[in-house]
């Protein structure tokens, strides 16, 4: 079994932490479509074998973001359907090519729709607190500005990669006032905000959201001060197999990110790149279908394509240990 060059490119991007959740979904969809398009398999079963080995290569390194998992569900549920109804490889190839194309369009439309809804919750003259860097949140802030809403943004740097600084510089360069501080100052900043907007890596069936680490303590401070918390996600961020109790294994922090100089022999680096904000701290999930109570995502998950073979593969995943383990 050979691994397709598009899959290899994607895995190396995952290894270099270059793909955030939304982009990872688009990238995995296109890469799997390339596998299907370029496979020399003459039967659906050998094409399935090709797809499976490529998916396994991805799953080995892929962070547990919902969008790429959902891209896999989309491709593999179509494959399972095609196998059941004995379609030819050509028909299946055509279906996937079309699915990949419409995915790209769908993703852009969804983001624009969310930006519209999201900008409606930003009060004119208000202060928006956001955590780290989110394409969806940035899109929403840009849309709000385009509509003439005046607001200021607060963000913290978001260690370890300090992505919050990217948010600050992008907004400032576009003429939006932005305040930035260290993550420890969340307790001082959140109470000054009128609204908290964050993106997520995944939303689970219990309404909780997996977000960049530090989002949960910020959401606690927001509840304390009555600041509404909105999680902005398109439906590809919903993790449908959480309905079956399937967890998402989170990436641990790397040792060098905390103890880079003069390492201490006995010290262990602990913690993960993401934390879980429970649904009862979330005022609404803002999706392309509109604003909903976090508990309502489970209803939607029941409609989503779920592939048996991806469910099995996810069930075999084990938590990634600390670096090098």
């Amino acid at each position: 079994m050979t691994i397709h060059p598009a899959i290899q490119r994607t895995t190396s991007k995952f290894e270099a932490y270059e793909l955030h959740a939304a982009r990872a979904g688009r990238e995995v969809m296109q890469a799997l479509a390339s596998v299907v398009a370029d496979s020399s398999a003459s039967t659906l079963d050998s094409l399935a074998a090709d797809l499976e080995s490529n998916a396994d290569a991805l799953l080995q390194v892929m962070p547990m973001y919902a969008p790429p998992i959902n891209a896999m569900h989309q491709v593999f549920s179509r494959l399972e359907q095609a196998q059941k109804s004995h379609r030819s490889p050509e028909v299946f190839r055509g279906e996937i090519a079309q699915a990949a194309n419409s995915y790209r369009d769908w993703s852009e439309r969804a983001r624009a729709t969310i930006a519209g809804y999201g900008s409606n919750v930003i009060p004119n003259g208000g202060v928006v607190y956001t955590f780290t860097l989110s394409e969806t949140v940035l899109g929403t802030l840009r849309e709000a500005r385009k509509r003439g809403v005046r607001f200021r943004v607060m963000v913290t740097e978001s260690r370890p990669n300090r992505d919050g600084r990217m948010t600050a510089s992008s907004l400032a360069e576009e003429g939006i006032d932005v305040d930035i501080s260290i993550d420890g100052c969340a307790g001082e900043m959140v109470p000054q905000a009128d609204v908290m907007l964050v993106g997520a890596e995944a939303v689970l069936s219990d309404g909780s959201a997996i977000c960049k680490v530090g989002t949960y303590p910020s959401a606690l401070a927001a509840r304390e001060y009555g600041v509404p918390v909105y999680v902005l996600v398109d439906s590809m961020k919903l993790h449908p197999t959480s309905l079956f109790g399937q967890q998402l294994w989170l990436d641990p922090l790397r040792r060098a990110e905390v103890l880079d100089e003069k390492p201490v022999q006995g010290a262990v680096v602990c913690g993960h790149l993401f934390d879980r904000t429970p649904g009862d701290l979330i005022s609404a999930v803002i999706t392309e279908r509109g604003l909903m109570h976090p508990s309502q995502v489970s209803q939607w998950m029941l409609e989503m394509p779920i592939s048996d073979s991806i469910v099995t593969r996810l069930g075999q995943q084990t938590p990634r240990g600390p670096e090098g383990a």
Partner: protein
Amino acid sequence: MSSHPDVRAIVERVRKDEIGGAADTAKEVVDALSKMVRDSKAKNTKALVAEIDGAVLDIMRVMPSLAPPINALHRFVGTMERGEADGVSVEQMKEALQQSRDQFFEWAENALGKVAQYGAEKVSEGDRVFMYSMSSTVWRIFRAAKEQGKQFEVVVTESRPGNEGLWTVKEMDKLGIPVSVSIDAAIGELIPECSAVFVGADVISSTGHALCKAGTYPSALVAKAYGIPFYIAADTLKFDTATLFGLPYRNEAIHRHDVLDDSYPDRAKVVGHLFDETPPELVTAIVTEIGILHPAAAFAVLQRMNPSRKIGEMLPAWSRGEL
């Protein structure tokens, strides 16, 4: 400006922020004043009091919002005020102030030992305890618990921007206590896995609010959400008399270069302070040398302090920087 070299030196050191901790500042201030008193050529009590008043004013003018040195001044000046009221001779006054200095030093040493002893009772065999940033008082608690033969682990985060949490990593390693470290944002994941949280404080207010390193307040919120006991270790010198009068405490702003370098646009502003405030409803207890107290007991602690009238009168102008 006082002419005594020790007083001049302490004023300079406080002004330039050259002294490590607030407790050390308190000791140095009292020591400098007692040396000035010892060397004083004052012929009568009134002249000695005038000399002390002048030196205290010099020191207060440069004093940042640190409760311990101000409380130390309350003790020292309070002794002087009682001597004045009793009409003591200049020799008796000198002796009383020397004694006040010695008692203060003895008290300071004993107080931290007692905080450690009481705090260690809250560390149990097999515990995994979380601590935020660094605090030599909390370190003493862990050392005392270790000396009692308890096996436990410590979890700490780096505590940006100064990364004092990494000092804790080194200290625990030196004490042979297993230690894990992470980034500040990970408190929401790490605290729920711990059995207790210990932090030090810079200031305890009369209402039981605690001013601690930025990030302590979110940690307390997480601990509350999971029902994990949250202890603040602070001797009573950290209890701030100025807050009794409703005066604010000073809080240092985070420097721009701690967050952004020069490549970032000016429109992106760096905000936030080095300390945040943890309200008493999130605090299980404050571990003091008096004992393990409910945070609301801060008021009673301040009532016991017998504050100096002169220092009290200086505080409003001092807090506005107009002294």
